């Protein structure tokens, strides 16, 4: 039994989501191979080899893997899996990267995919949420090669201490279907939402984009927190798209989640209800957010947040 993990990285650093995926793979048992495909990404391959539980790193380096586009990457995974009969599982994190690539891999392998796995019961039985987290399914896969995307927040990251071998994997040809024109990645001075241990999140109660930033940023600074937003706040233009926490945005599970002026729509709760401690500040005592909050403060956020900052 061998699991192949498609590593998420930026050619320099192995993304934390890969560590959660490796942790999930250790629950399956058997050997763990990590595929690091990219451009000039030898440092990432070495980093992957030092992760506990990894038995082998496959390093494929070519210009046409540099942008990690789905078509070439999926073809590489397919050829690797087809070349070695030992593979029983193919895993990737359920991040924007993994969600893009993995279904393409599954179809090339004529396998069904189990998305957003939150628990591994046995090598063929998994748990996953569906209906925006309103239902949980236990599913058994009958495919010879099981393809799983891993909900990263459900697995603590694998630690250091691995001494895996790094093997060079010959690049497959360039399919030439897609080229990257450009990327606009916002440089954050704060922690990344999906990796933050504290998140301060704002909703429509903030009332305007300038207030959203003026109220939340000092609190986030004080707590060393990432800033998130509800869909209502994003749709109203208070915060950029990638701030959105919820079923169709980011799924987060920090140690502390502070919901400010968020009513608590189902779609938002689905994205944050696995947080360890939830604090809600809202002037409406009947807001659904209080039904999931460990600590609720019924107050006007414009006075409560500055008070909170002063008291911290």
């Amino acid at each position: 039994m061998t699991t192949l993990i498609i590593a998420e990285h930026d050619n320099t650093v192995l993304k934390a989501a890969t560590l959660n995926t490796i942790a999930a793979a250790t629950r399956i048992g058997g050997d763990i191979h990590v595929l690091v495909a990219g451009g000039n990404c030898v440092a990432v391959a070495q980093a992957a080899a030092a992760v506990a539980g990894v038995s082998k790193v496959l390093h494929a380096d070519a210009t046409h893997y540099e942008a990690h586009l789905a078509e070439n990457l999926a073809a590489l995974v397919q050829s690797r899996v087809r070349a070695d009969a030992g593979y029983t599982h193919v895993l990737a994190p359920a991040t924007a990267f993994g969600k893009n690539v993995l279904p393409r891999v599954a179809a090339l392998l004529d396998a069904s995919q189990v998305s957003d796995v939150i628990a591994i019961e046995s090598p063929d039985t998994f748990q996953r949420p569906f209906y925006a987290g309103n239902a949980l399914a236990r599913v058994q896969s009958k495919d010879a090669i099981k393809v799983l995307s891993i909900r990263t927040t459900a697995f603590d990251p694998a630690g250091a201490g691995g001494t895996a071998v790094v093997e060079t994997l010959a690049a497959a040809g360039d399919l030439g279907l897609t080229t990257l024109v450009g990327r606009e990645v916002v440089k954050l001075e704060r922690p990344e939402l999906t990796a933050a241990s504290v998140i301060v999140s704002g909703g429509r109660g903030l009332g305007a984009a300038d207030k959203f930033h003026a109220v939340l940023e000092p609190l986030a600074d004080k707590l060393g927190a990432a800033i998130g937003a509800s869909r209502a706040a994003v749709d109203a233009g208070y915060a950029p798209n990638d701030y959105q926490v919820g079923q169709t945005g980011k799924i987060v599970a920090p140690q502390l989640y502070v919901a400010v002026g968020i009513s608590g729509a189902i779609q938002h709760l689905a994205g944050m209800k696995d947080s360890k401690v939830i604090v809600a500040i809202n002037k409406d005592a009947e807001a659904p957010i209080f039904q999931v909050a460990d600590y609720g403060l019924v107050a006007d956020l414009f006075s409560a947040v500055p008070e909170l900052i002063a008291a911290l």
Partner: protein
Amino acid sequence: MKILVAVKRVLDYNVKARVKSDGSGVDLANQKLSMNPFDEIACEEAVRLREAGVASEVIVVSCGPTVCQETLRSAMAIGADRAVLIETDAGLEPLAVAKLMQHVATKEGVQFAIFGKQAIDDDAGQTGQMFGALMGWAQASFASKVQISGDTATITREIDGGLETLAMKLPAVITTDLRLNEPRFITLPNIMKAKKKPMEVIKAAELGIDIAPRTVTLHVSEPPTRKAGIKVADTAELVKRLKEEAKVI
């Protein structure tokens, strides 16, 4: 250029899913079902491309029971030209749907396909990418902007932490993100017009395509619910409890 749009009939997004007491699944009896919201966005985008003169025809396709014809009529009320229903009462996994869509796309000589990024019932988020793999086409998932000129589609897509822009050679498939567009309001005259548009029904069983499920759902349950905690009197009490009780700050 013909565009294929895949649509799915799902539990309406305003209805809370309730798990059946026998753990066999989610109760859909007597519930409102409607078009998956991401598929509505897909439909709108395709119709805009036709209105802009980029596409010649928009074909909407759904896989499922007879009643999916209603969903296809809604898609034609948005402006799709005609519909194809691959009829089956069997439960379909994304891979099976991708294979059925491949059949239609090949038969119709489609050059561009638009799928929703995920269906809000099974939340799988797979079908569009799987279709891309089966067709050997370029793919761009989570698209928030689409421009087509000549044989190149330039797509802006949402990635973690920002956006990326891809240039794809047609034929290609995209999946829609929420912010790609806002679907138009469906008017009564367009609903009437949609009733007269062509609807082809193909029996899935007659196609000889392997659509048997590969996974078995053993049990479906309600997720563990979070208990409501306490209301604190003021920020001082909140800070005290976070420090001493929860120990998170």
